[in-house]
Structures are given as C-alpha cells and as structure tokens.
C-alpha cells in the first residue's frame, strides 16, 4: 500500500513536471506568435488581396494578348485591325505620358493662405502624394499637368511646376475615385487637418467633368535628350 502511494505520488509529480515544462513552452510560443500576429495578420491579408487583384488583371491581360496574337497569326481582318490597334496604342501612350487633355470624375481642390503662413511647394507636394496614393489617374496644379518629370518647387514667393511660376490660389484637379481621394485627405492628422492648422482656405469639390489639360509638348517638360530607348 505504501509502495503504491509512493509510486502514485511519483507519477503525479512527474506528470506535473512535464505539464509545467510544456505549459511554459507553449506560453512563450504564444507570446511570440501573438506579437507576430498583431503586427502582420491584417497587413498580410491586405497584401494578399492586392496581389490577387494584380494577378487577376495580369491574367486578363494575358488572355487578351493571346487572342490578339492568334488573330495576328491567322491574318483575320488584318489590315483594318492592325491600323486601328496601332492608333489606339499611340493614343494610350500619349494619355499615359500626360500629353492628352482628359476628362473624368474627380476632385477640384483649391488652397490659399488664410493667415500668416504662405502655401509652400512642400504643402502642395504633400497633397499630390496623398492623391497619388489613392490611385489617381491624372493630376494638375493650376492646369500644369503632373507628369513623370514634373517638379514642385519653391521659387521666391511662388511655386514652380513644370518650370512655370504659379500664383495662388492653387487649384489642384485630380481624376480618380473622388470618395477614396477625399477619405484619404480627411484622415486624422492628414493633409487637410494640417492645412487647418496652417489656417489655409481650402475648397473641395467633387465633379463629374473634371478636365485636365495635357502637358505642353515642346521638349522642356517631357525631356528625352539624355535617354536612348533600349529595343529588346
């Protein structure tokens, strides 16, 4: 009987030891995981969704091209389609470069100093970055189209965009999803909140017919003199 008791106690203590060790380990692991999870789960999901969407458009684009390639190989209505396609791709490239005047739904934002602080290039730059982050398709500042080579800089009392001096009030036009753009501008601590602190007078208007002019095409904004195309 005594032997039995001792054995039972030994067994229980052994079990207890194992359990404590196991528990300790798992608590430790949980802490590490929880940290990882907090930091990354929502981010991971977001990234996964973006990646999926990218892949979907890639697949759609591949399918479209495959059809075009096989149509080209089979010489279907070739002449007509060929010329049409070429014209379309020229137009698309010109739209992408910012050379064409475009119209669409978007926002018209006006910014002007309302007190001591002047509107500076960096203030406008911050607004432009925020708009670009909300998938904008075309932007202009006082009708100067923002293209790949557009700078926004200080020039005395003015700001300079595309090598031209602009005077306030500054009117920023953006074509894109107006709700998405407005939401990101109105974020807590966002651009509009800062503008309020600076006492800027800000106008924000959603418009279905925002017209954004193309950039001037004289080689001074879209510059290519130092570039050579690499033909594959």
């Amino acid at each position, binding site marked *: 009987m005594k032997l039995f008791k001792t054995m039972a106690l030994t067994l229980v203590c052994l079990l207890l030891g194992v359990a404590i060790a196991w528990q300790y380990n798992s608590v430790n692991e949980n802490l590490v*995981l929880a940290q990882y999870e907090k930091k990354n789960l929502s981010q991971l999901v977001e*990234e996964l969704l973006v990646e999926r969407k990218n892949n979907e458009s890639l697949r759609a684009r591949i399918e*479209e091209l495959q059809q075009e390639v096989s149509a080209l190989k089979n010489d279907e209505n070739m002449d007509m389609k060929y*010329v049409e396609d070429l014209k379309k791709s020229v137009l698309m490239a010109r739209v992408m470069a910012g050379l064409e005047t475009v119209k669409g739904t978007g926002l018209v934002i006006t910014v002007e100093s309302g007190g001591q602080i002047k509107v500076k290039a960096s203030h406008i730059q911050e607004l432009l970055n925020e708009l670009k982050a909300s998938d904008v398709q075309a932007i202009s500042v006082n009708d100067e189209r923002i293209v790949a*080579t557009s700078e926004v800089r200080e020039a005395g009392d003015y700001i300079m965009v595309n090598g031209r001096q602009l005077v306030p009030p500054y009117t920023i036009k953006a074509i894109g999803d107006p709700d998405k753009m407005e939401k990101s501008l109105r974020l807590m601590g966002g651009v509009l909140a800062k503008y309020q602190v600076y006492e800027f007078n800000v106008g924000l208007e959603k418009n279905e017919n925002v017209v954004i002019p193309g950039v001037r095409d004289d080689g001074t904004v879209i510059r290519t003199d130092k570039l050579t195309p690499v033909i594959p």
Partner: protein
Amino acid sequence: MVKTHRILMFMVFLLLGMLITLQFRGVINTSEGNISVKEMASRLEAEEAEGRKLLEELNNLEAEWSQLLDNIGSRQQDPEIMELIRQRDYEYFRAGLTNVRGDGIIITMQDAQTAGDMNIEDYIIHDADITGILNELRSNGAEAISINGERILGTSKLVCAGPTIFLNKSRYPPPYVIKAIGDPDTLYNAIDQLSNVAIMRIYGIRVDIRKEYDMVIEKYRLYESIDEWLSSLEVVSE
C-alpha cells in the same frame, strides 16, 4: 501526517487540473493563430510567385505580339503604317513604356542598423524621404527614374506600408535603390547637398550616392489592357 499528505495531494491535483485546462486552451489558441498567420504568409508567398510567373509570361507575349506587328508592318511596306509604327515606338518611349539607357546616379537607402534612444520612427526610411528625393531629382533634370526596378511615372503611388514601401502595384522592402538618368554631376550634387539627406544620415540611415554611366532603367509594367486604361479617362480632342 496523513492529513498533510492529503492536502498536498489535493493541491497537486488541483494544480494539475488547472494546468491541463490551460494547456488545452493554449494549444487550441496556438493552432488557430498559427494557421492563420502562417497560412496567410504562405498564401501570400504563393500569390507573389504566381505573379512573377504571370509577369514573365506577359513579357514574352508582349515581345511576340510586337514582333508579329513589326513583321506585318514591314511586309506591307505601307508608308502610313510605317509612320504609325514609328509614332507608337516614340510615344511608348516618352510614356515610360520602353526600357531606356543613359548616364545618371544610383542612390541606395538602407534603414539605420541600430535604433538610438530617440523615436524609432526616425531611424527608418519614410515615403516622404523618398518623394523628397524624387522631387529634387526632377527639379535637377532627371529624365527617367526607377525605384527597385519600378519605373516612376507622374501618377505613381508611393506609400509606406509598415516596414516596406508600396510602389505602383507592388510592395518592396529596403534597401531602396533609386536610379535616375540625367546629368550625373548635377544630380549627384543636388542629392548630396539635400538637407533631408543630411538629417537621415545623422540618424544612421545609410544614403549612398554614386554616379553611374550607361545604365538601363526598366519600363513601366502595364498590368491593364489598353482599353482598360482608356476607359477610365475620356480623351478630349482639341
């Protein structure tokens, strides 16, 4: 003696029971948390791998497509078509849809190795640091810019996403490698003297600038079809 023994036994078993319960809950929680994070990470990885494969496939198809078009064009010897092909190549080149070659600078930015006793935020690179550099490059005549191989256009998205940045349509971790084609000396001096670069360097963020000759900057990767691109904007002819 027997009583103490009993009390001791009772306590041991009580503890054991509690531990087992805790452990069970722990195991269940762990496996749930484990699966979601790990699986999400591996799904993301798989999706990214798939994306790279698709992109390569698209590149090959594009090459085949433009080759076919060129063949047809040259076969036809039609001056109108030859002119259209020339126009298309030129506008693709200006829009950033063609790889380009030229002289310029390469800027490599890397987060500080160790954070000091100030705000941790000051030791990592932010989107504003990069957009500031881009603006300076543009002000000094840069003609083509890419970051980590991603061509930067007028509407390119550039935002912080945790410790990484989101560029155009993809996410990139540091180091950030900015390539710019323009006059190498002008660009080098402009970036080297930028006050924000000096501030970053004080915090231990590494900003290496070097002049590079005859380098290639990749074209903008177009995910959408031409029609998709044009559908969202109405072109107003003058």
